[in-house]
């Protein structure tokens, strides 16, 4: 049942009134992005997804409300950190070089936590994909969520599928102009709010919001607001499914993560075929349950036909399940002709075996194990994370300096970090060398271990000079260990003392 290409490309034909079954109209919807119909180098054929009602649509509404709510509200959540720190719960403070997440404060030196978080997120995505297929694409991806929101607006302003098709084909009238402008205006408002919420994660939200409206905010704030407004409007309003099909790498990657036991939105060919219109009173024996009403195609935001089987374009949003279930109820057949199922189960049913789900598989175990391992490392790192830190950088230019009496000096830049909100005194010790003398710039008569005061939430840089008598230089490279400690916490940093090794 493939329509001639030219007619598909030119326009979406008016819906015919043919009956697919008693009480169910057959929609002449064309899966414009299906493998058989899509063509390269032609303009995008618009898709008019039809509203469906059902459990998955409800789940998507709830999910959308929760995720968008979280996204918009999070920058406004306050978290008291005392007088000298921002009170925004989630804040990427680029000016002061800190990342705040509720009780966690990450310094730029600890960016590996972010790396860990990203690894954790990808492993979790792998794990979920192996189990349930593309749930990320179908429910949680921003592209999906915002496109869904934009289609909702479109539906509210222009009406459902049929009205939208009719409106697009109709000549320009005042009504059409009004509806189109209203739609784009609301889209732009949503886009601006999206970009606006994004920049609130990088500045104190109430202050920035006030400055934004007064016109006194930083130019970069307006720039990013503009970029993100445009991106949201363009991606969710105009590009839509093309982002998933042409731009996103994930559909390609996920093919490597799934197998024949992975749950996917599946048309059960074994039950549905051979498909065809069903006349009232006709028996269901000897034919498939698919009445070819095309409701699944009309509901699809990606413009594909799920009955073609597993395909890259399918984001597994499950709206076709809702569409089909409604039809199945009306014709008095059990629901689930399209359902979350596995390719393996289709094969099992064809062979008259009992279908079942196998969740514990080597691939799933592997992803779960990696997930647990990385999470454990992260948790260990976070729980043993000290509020002090030490970095020692030996001068490399010059590597060492010979003094007038033949002794040799090395210079070190020692950075002591205090990650608490109160000023603290640390104790700095230097060990491992024999017979050296020490000098710290700005300190008088240093006696080790030396007391180092560091202000609250600050890093203090010391310049430490170590001098070794010429006759004590047993090797060109001698080990030396810097240790900083305070309040029961200790950090060490092993480095080297370089010289010519006493060769003159």
């Amino acid at each position, binding site marked *: 049942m493939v329509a001639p290409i030219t007619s598909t490309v030119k326009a979406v034909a008016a819906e015919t009134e043919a009956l697919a079954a008693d009480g169910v109209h057959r929609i002449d919807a064309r899966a414009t992005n299906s493998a058989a119909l899509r063509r390269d180098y032609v*303009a995008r054929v618009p898709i008019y997804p039809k509203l469906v009602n059902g459990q998955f649509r409800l789940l998507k509404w709830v999910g959308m409300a929760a995720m968008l709510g979280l996204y918009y509200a999070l920058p406004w959540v306050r978290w008291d950190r005392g007088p000298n720190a921002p009170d925004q719960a989630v804040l990427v403070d680029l000016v002061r070089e800190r990342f705040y997440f509720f009780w966690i404060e990450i310094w730029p030196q600890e960016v590996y936590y972010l790396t860990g978080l990203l690894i954790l997120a990808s492993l979790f995505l792998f794990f979920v994909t192996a189990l349930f297929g593309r749930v990320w694409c179908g429910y949680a991806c921003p592209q999906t969520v915002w496109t869904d929101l934009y289609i909702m607006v479109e539906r509210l302003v222009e009406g459902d599928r049929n009205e939208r098709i009719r409106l697009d084909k109709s000549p320009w009238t005042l009504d059409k102009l009004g509806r189109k402008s209203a739609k784009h205006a609301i889209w732009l408002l949503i886009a601006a709010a999206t970009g606006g919420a994004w920049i609130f994660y990088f500045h104190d939200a109430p202050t920035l919001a006030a400055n934004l409206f007064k016109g006194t905010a930083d130019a970069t704030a307006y720039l990013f607001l503009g970029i993100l407004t445009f991106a949201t409007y363009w991606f969710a309003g105009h590009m839509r499914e093309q982002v998933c099909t042409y731009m996103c790498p994930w559909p390609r990657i996920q093919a490597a993560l799934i197998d024949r036991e992975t749950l996917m939105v599946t048309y059960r060919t074994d039950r549905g075929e051979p498909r065809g219109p069903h006349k009232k009173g006709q028996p269901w024996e000897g034919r498939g349950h698919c009445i070819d009403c095309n409701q699944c195609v009309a509901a699809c935001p990606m413009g594909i036909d799920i009955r073609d089987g597993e395909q890259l374009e399918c984001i597994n949003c499950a709206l076709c399940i809702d569409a089909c279930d409604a039809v199945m109820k009306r014709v008095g057949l059990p629901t689930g002709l399209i359902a979350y199922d596995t390719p393996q189960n289709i094969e099992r049913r064809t062979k008259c075996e009992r279908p079942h789900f196998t969740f514990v598989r080597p691939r799933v175990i592997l992803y779960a194990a990696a997930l647990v391992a990385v999470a454990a490392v992260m948790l260990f790192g976070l729980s043993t994370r000290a509020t002090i830190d030490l970095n020692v950088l030996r*001068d*490399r*230019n*010059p590597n060492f*300096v*010979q*003094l*007038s*009496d*033949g002794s040799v*000096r090395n*210079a070190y830049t020692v950075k002591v970090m205090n990650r608490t909100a109160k000023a603290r005194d640390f104790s700095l010790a230097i060990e491992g060398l024999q017979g050296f003398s020490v*000098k710290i*710039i*700005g300190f008088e008569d240093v006696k080790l271990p030396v007391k180092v005061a560091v202000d609250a939430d600050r890093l*203090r*840089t010391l*310049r430490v*000079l170590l001098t070794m008598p010429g006759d004590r230089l047993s090797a060109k490279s001698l080990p030396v260990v810097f240790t900083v400690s305070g309040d029961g916490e200790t950090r060490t940093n092993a480095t080297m003392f370089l010289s010519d090794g006493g060769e003159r």
Partner: protein
Amino acid sequence: MVTRKEIDATSGTETTGHEWDGIKELNTPLPRWWLWVLYATIIWSVGYWVLYPAWPTLTGYTQGVLNQSQRDDVAKAVQALKSERAELGQKLAAASLEQIEANPDLLQFAREAGKSAFGDNCATCHGSGAQGFKGYPNLNDDVWLWGGKLEDIKRTIVVGVRSTHPETRLSAMPAFGRDKLLETAQINDLTEYVVSLSGAKADAQAVARVTTLYAEQCASCHGADGKGLREFGAPNLTDKEWLYGGTREEIKAQIVNARGGVMPTWGQRLDPITIDALAVYVHSLGGGE
């Protein structure tokens, strides 16, 4: 001449009419997005001409209604940076050099500012790490010809060495060989004497021959014991550091030619805060004196 349009049956695209060996060239239109970007840039450029300097005229150029100038922008950015640093700069100016070193924040600021100024002005001769080269002193060590205290270093930066400043640090060793003040044999013996001063093996007879000559010709500046005299900027000859090298040939070459480096005066070129920062930076390299 192509007189009629030919449409390629397979692709539905017009051909250019060119044909080679039966292969026809399609006149595929530009991608629409590309065309739109082109139009957008054209519209953009019109706006640009109106707002920004764009067209050359006979005497200058069109200014644009925004009156924008990159030269002004740079000046503004420099000014903004200065005012951003003004607070610490003021504190730096008000504090003595010793107070700067004792205050962690000021020390950090002075070292950063000093390091940047050092890279711009001093590294050419002294090296990017102030490690020095032959004839250009290493500023990391403990040899200070003109003094290694904070004030001494600052003074040297301000007046320079053998510079055009009226109060410049000045020392002049006679070129004993080049100006024929001494015989070659005497210079050879003196070389042995200087080598012996730093504790190295030397020809004892030669040393004995020139002991009086050293006292007459050299001791007035380098001291009777060879330890040098700071007032004259005369180096210590008994230590292990040699500005022009410590081998016999290098020492002899110095007695013959008496080279001396030149450091410009920075007092007029750099602002007082930068000079303070430089003094603190140089002093902090090796701890000075």
